[in-house]
């Protein structure tokens, strides 16, 4: 239960940064924190105490079949693509922030809302 609560706390910190900060780079950092929290929560759901990583290494495990003692591999497969998608989303938001800086010369969103082209 405690690891799940830590993930929810990280999610709430990220949400606070997205809502209340006025600097664009800080807002992008907040989105990154939200994505780390969700990926960590998914990976923690599939943990099994006393089990091994889901990779077959020895010929004895090849013959075992039913009795292999592995952690749950399905959440790991889902999180694997989610991590790379998080990187591409962050890169897209950073390119938008860079273009806004080139046009308005500031990262402050209240200034940008005031100037408006």
């Amino acid at each position, binding site marked *: 239960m405690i690891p799940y*609560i830590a993930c929810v706390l990280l999610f709430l910190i990220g949400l606070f940064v997205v809502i209340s900060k006025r*600097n664009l780079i800080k807002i992008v*950092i907040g989105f990154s*924190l939200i994505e780390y929290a969700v990926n960590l929560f998914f990976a923690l759901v599939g943990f099994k105490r006393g089990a091994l*990583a889901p990779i077959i290494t020895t010929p004895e495990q090849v013959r075992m079949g039913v009795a292999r003692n592995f952690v749950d591999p399905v959440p790991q497969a889902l999180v694997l693509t989610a991590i790379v998608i*998080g990187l591409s989303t962050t890169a897209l938001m950073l390119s938008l922030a860079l273009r806004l800086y080139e046009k308005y010369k500031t990262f402050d969103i209240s200034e940008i809302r005031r100037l408006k082209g």
Partner: protein
Amino acid sequence: MLELYLLLAVMIAAALVASETKNLLAAAVALGLVGFSVAIIFILVQAPDLAIVQIVVETLTVVFFTAVILRTTDIDTTVTQGLKMETAMFIAAFLAFGGLFLALIIGVLQELPRFGEPVMLIAQEYVQLGLERTGAANIVSAIILDFRGYDTLGEATVLFTAVVGVLTIMRLAGRKKPGEF
């Protein structure tokens, strides 16, 4: 399990630093610290695939942030000294919302299986028949490339869209000359 709790505490402390500091480069470095503690937690829960991907993706994220910050400015000009009245009321309102959210989430998390005893309904068949059906020894690779290949196709599409989007926003591709329609 002591290492797991210690790493979670480091992660939350680094997240607080990343949100409150005035120097933007320090915030990017603190974000890197959050990512690396997540990677070590992935090793502790027996997920080496995720640990490798998280380490390299975290390094590239910090490199991208630093590239953008060094081209522009690295001081956050919106942080003021002192604690104004409206900021304190905002923080109090968010703490109240956070407390309510946490109480409701704890009520929901009781329904999940306990941490460390998953119900592997779908994964039983993948773990048993993974090697005979596909011939790959890494079951996670067999899942993302054979059993659930559509998800990987979707991820490749999203990555392609992100690359085209970044190149178009930075005006490196797809620009028409005046006179065309």
